[in-house]
């Protein structure tokens, strides 16, 4: 990236025409020639889709439509800007926590209005230097080359530069991402021994959560909120922690407090709605889902399940007709989307059944099941739970049982999800001892996995391959099985040469995992292994 500020492309986003003029004037006085300016989120996204910007100066408060945080979330999530681009959020208030929407997307910097052009110049200079300093590492992280990033970070930390904490912070975040919670915890405690820094406190809470030390995590997040009741990220984590502690009512209260402080975060509204719905607090759920839909009209977080859940809530607070109306909105908002059709059919089955239209309900359910099978691993695992519920309601116990068993098989290592399967099994009276049933299925899969790995270890790759091929067929949605199968297939090809048919299979296995969990660490390892295999090294 070039350092010369006058050669960079700038985008100004501000709803206030005079303010756009002011910013443009400031930039021009630095010699910048490439400046575009827009008034709202829609135009901003369109510009960013069409052109690469080095620096985006975006006002947080943009009147109707998207706010600055939503723009940032969308362009980062959709990767419309690379890690080398700089995003500066311009706010009216000097407290940055206040505007924190989703936790995972933070701008590179906040600027508080009004600021002089000298300050803007000073800030841009620093941000450009910082970007150049971190670019290599951020690039590695962006490409999911975590090991490489880690090596680079260790090297920089060993050099002990004046901004060493910046690298330490990145390293700890990387540990959390990679699931190395012990290591993250150690790093954060080291920092906290010296000073009580906010990012390290939030970080150590996350590390505790990852290590399933939920009581410790809870204490950390509560402590952060005691110090500052607008620390939005702490609310989200506290609610997550309380849910893990089996305190769904308390978790709901936490999110209600959070949304009272900052109503604009779609993800949080959606999480609140889902919690409230499962707590049978349909009034709160209805409000939260309506908000999530309203806020999410132009957002990447627009999702059919929000509509489906709103329909369910409305069927209780108002009546079935009101629920069906929401489903019609759903279809309108997601024309031609199979996943949306699935949500719609599934939900309609439940509503129609409750309204006493058994025949119509059955048709919807059969339709939903067909769509579910068609979607395969692209359908969210939680859908199996909903489907099972409606099947069971209509007396299709066999089908419900089968769906839940498959759900366990596909997600045998996801404890949180298995807990949900367990309570669904119990709720529906499908099993006297759901935990034992789940444990049995788990044991079977673990045994199968271990046998395959063992076979591979002693060099019986062909046998191992057969075993995993069969396993994958039975559990196409199981990440671990898919990844192991891919690995064994690749080991075999490394020994005996590339086989196009097997190569396709490997690609298919990896694609499935990517659809379910693109952040999976083993997946990234397997993808690298595939690259090496193909480059013939």
């Amino acid at each position, binding site marked *: 990236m070039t350092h010369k500020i006058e050669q960079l492309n700038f985008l100004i986003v501000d709803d*206030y025409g*005079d*303010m756009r003029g*002011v910013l443009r*004037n*400031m930039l021009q*006085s630095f010699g910048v020639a490439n400046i575009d300016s827009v008034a709202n989120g829609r135009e901003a996204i369109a510009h960013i889709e069409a052109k690469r910007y080095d620096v985006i100066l975006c006002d947080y*408060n943009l009147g109707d439509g998207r706010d600055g945080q939503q723009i940032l979330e969308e362009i980062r999530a959709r990767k419309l800007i690379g890690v080398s681009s700089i995003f500066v959020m311009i706010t*009216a*208030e*000097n*407290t*940055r*926590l206040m505007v924190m929407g989703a936790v995972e997307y933070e701008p590179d910097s906040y600027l*508080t*209005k*009004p*600021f*002089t*052009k*000298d*300050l803007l*110049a*000073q*800030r841009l200079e*620093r941000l450009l230097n910082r970007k150049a300093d971190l670019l290599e590492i951020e690039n590695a992280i962006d490409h999911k080359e975590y090991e490489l990033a880690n090596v680079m970070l260790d090297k920089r930390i060993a050099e002990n530069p*004046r*901004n060493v*904490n910046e690298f330490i912070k990145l390293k700890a975040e990387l540990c959390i991402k990679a699931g190395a919670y012990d290591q993250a915890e150690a790093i954060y405690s080291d920092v906290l021994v010296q*000073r*009580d*820094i*906010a*990012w390290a406190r939030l970080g150590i809470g996350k590390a505790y959560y990852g290590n399933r030390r939920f009581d410790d995590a809870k204490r950390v997040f509560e402590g952060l909120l*005691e*110090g*500052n*009741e*607008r*620390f939005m990220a702490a609310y989200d984590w506290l609610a997550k922690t309380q849910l893990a502690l089996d305190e769904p009512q308390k978790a709901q209260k936490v999110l209600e407090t959070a949304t009272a402080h900052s109503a604009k975060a779609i993800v949080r509204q959606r999480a609140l709605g889902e919690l409230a719905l499962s707590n049978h607090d349909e009034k709160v759920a209805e409000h939260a889902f309506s908000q999530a839909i309203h806020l999410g009209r132009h957002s990447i977080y627009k999702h059919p399940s929000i509509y489906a859940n709103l329909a369910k809530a409305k069927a209780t607070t108002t009546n079935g007709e009101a629920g069906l109306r929401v489903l019609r909105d759903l279809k309108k908002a997601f024309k031609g989307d199979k996943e949306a059709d699935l949500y719609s059919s599934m939900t309609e089955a439940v509503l129609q059944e409750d309204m006493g239209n058994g025949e119509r309900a059955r048709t919807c359910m059969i339709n939903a099941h067909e769509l579910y099978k068609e979607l395969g691993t692209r359908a969210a695992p939680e859908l199996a739970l909903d489907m099972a519920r409606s099947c069971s309601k209509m007396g299709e116990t066999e089908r419900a049982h089968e769906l839940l068993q498959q759900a366990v098989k596909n997600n045998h290592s996801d404890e949180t999800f298995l807990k949900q399967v367990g309570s669904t099994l119990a709720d529906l009276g499908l099993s006297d001892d759901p935990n034992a049933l789940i444990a049995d299925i788990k044991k079977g899969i673990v045994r199968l996995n271990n046998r395959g790995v063992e076979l591979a270890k002693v060099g019986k790759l062909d046998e191992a391959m057969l075993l995993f091929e069969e396993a994958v067929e039975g559990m196409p949605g199981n990440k671990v099985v898919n990844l192991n199968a891919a690995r064994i297939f690749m080991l075999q090809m490394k020994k005996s040469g590339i086989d196009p048919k097997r190569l396709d299979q490997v690609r298919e296995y990896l694609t499935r995992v990517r659809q379910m969990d693109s952040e999976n660490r083993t997946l990234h390892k397997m993808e690298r292994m595939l690259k090496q295999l193909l480059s013939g090294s």
Partner: protein
Amino acid sequence: MKFYDVLASLIHDMKNSLSMVVHTLEQLTSDPSFHYDKPEQVTALQNEARRLNNNLIELLTLYKIENERISPTIEDVDVANFLAEIVAESSSSATANHIKLSYDCDPDLYGYFDEGLLRGVLNNLVGNGLRYTMDELRISAAQEDNYLVFRVEDNGVGYPKQMLAAQTSEDLHRDLAEGRTQLGIYFATMIAEMHKNKDQSGFIRLENNYRLPGGCFSVWLP
């Protein structure tokens, strides 16, 4: 809607207006073709607009401190860069007032404090300093006896005696109620005292003739 939200949204709007005033004046004064036979009036306008802005920030922050549980969000801050920004923020205003504004600080110094809150405090002190100094204003930061010390020094006439006496928030609160002290000092004291580390709290100190022959306002953070 809470009163806070009304306040915040009004302040947002006022800040847009202020931005316009500040920036338009800045553009006028930096435009070589602009001739006005009383440039000091433009400068006075600039000074007042900035003061208004600093007061708005004080108002909002004090409201938050009184009505919500709020404590500083401690981050690790590159102090030299932080001071460079404080100076950049006020340099055009200093130039227009014919005041030499500078900072000095060890370039490797890192500090632990709430950047947003301290920015408010220092902008305020600089704003006041620009009004009371003769022709020089110096900002500095240093690590002294377990404290990070920010100093704003001027070469004006210095602080009057009774102000040098009142140094705790209680004194100041009383003086404030009796109209004897400025809101700015009270604000700085509140923010300083909110910064705590182990068993130490922050504080402020007023003195005269520290290095420059005028007033010296220091903020001590543990």
